[in-house]
């Protein structure tokens, strides 16, 4: 049953606007429509200047992370009825905090990716692989870091993290999760290097256990748990 949905979007065009401001749109939408569908409807039929990122539109590419009713979510995973749009409540859409706004809902992800690269997100192994086969890993060893392999680098966690907002150089939960994926991988030998990066002032010890990251993650990665495991690993191995 299609209903009228009111949407408030934070708009900002660096070439025209001095500061960001809200604009309100009314859209006809079905309760099972996704927020991304609502954005598309606005862009295609009402205001072509609305700018946002999207790609796969089904929750695996991580392009459309944004603040929906104050919380970081993927626009293609949130349904209109999830945020009360079908009950007449206003839907508020803003870009994520902690990132410089480039335009409308598009934020500058470069610093985010620099921080990701700084923790060496690739397998480090100083021995050659066995000639006859791959580097063997048991199912149990694979289980250990299973959760942190799921990161899609959407930025929802880092964008929800108060120390990340406070800056300036905290690597952020996403970088720590991706470091965890390799640190606890039994085939990897680069734990010492990554731990020493994460042990510095802008590493894991900026985390204040706020838990916003775990709440925000669209892949249900237990981010806080991963960070705690790294801190304990540092403590017990000093």
């Amino acid at each position, binding site marked *: 049953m299609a209903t009228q949905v009111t949407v408030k979007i934070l708009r900002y065009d660096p070439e025209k606007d001095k500061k960001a401001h809200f604009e309100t749109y009314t859209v006809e939408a079905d309760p099972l429509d996704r927020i991304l569908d609502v954005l598309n409807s606005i862009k295609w039929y009402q205001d072509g200047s609305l700018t946002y990122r999207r790609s796969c539109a089904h929750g695996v590419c991580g392009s459309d992370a944004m603040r929906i009713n104050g919380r970081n979510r993927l626009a293609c995973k949130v349904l209109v009825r999830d945020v009360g749009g079908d009950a007449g409540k206003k839907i508020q859409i803003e870009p994520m905090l902690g990132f410089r706004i480039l335009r409308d809902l598009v934020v500058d992800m470069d610093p985010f990716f620099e921080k990701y690269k700084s923790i060496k997100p690739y397998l480090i192994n*100083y021995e050659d692989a066995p000639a006859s086969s791959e580097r063997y890993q*048991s*199912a*149990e*060893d694979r*289980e*250990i*870091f*299973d*959760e942190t392999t799921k990161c899609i680098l959407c930025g929802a966690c880092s964008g929800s993290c108060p*120390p990340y907002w*406070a*800056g*300036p150089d905290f690597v952020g939960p996403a970088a720590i999760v991706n470091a965890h994926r390799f*640190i*606890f991988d*039994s*085939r*990897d*030998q680069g*734990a*010492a290097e990554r*731990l*020493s990066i994460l*042990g*510095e*002032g802008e*590493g894991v*010890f*900026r985390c204040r256990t706020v838990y916003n990251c775990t709440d925000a993650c669209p892949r249900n990665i237990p981010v806080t748990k991963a960070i705690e*495991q790294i*801190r*304990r*690993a*540092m*403590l*017990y*191995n*000093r």
Partner: protein
Amino acid sequence: MSTETKTTQHTHPDPVARTTRRWTRSGGRPRPTGNFELFSWYFFRISGILLLFFALIHLLIMHLLNNVDVIDYNFIVQRWASPLWRTFDIMLLVLALTHGLNGARVLIYDYVHSRGWRTFAVTTLYVVGILFIVLGAQVILTFQPQIQSVAK
């Protein structure tokens, strides 16, 4: 090796306990990441647990078992007649101040980004901190009851 399928959600082995094997090129322990931030994080937890004991007992005695109506100079004379209470109080003082000042240091690091101002703020913090530890310790350790002035 077990052949039954495992549900993934509930049986993750503890990574911290299991990963000490291939941590470095030589397979040995990683070089120590013992640094100030690790120490500060750990210190918060240790001092925090101790403070739970000291501070709650202090509050119990001062505000529940007694109260401000009863506490006066004589109360302190009697309390500090015992070396046990002096020790208790000085432990409480040092733990509480260091725990709190470390917290203030963290706030400065989180919110003051300009290097010049940050150095100034942290220095002020250390100076004020040392001053108050000395002030507090001085009175706890050296207090001697004075002859009470004649009631007016």
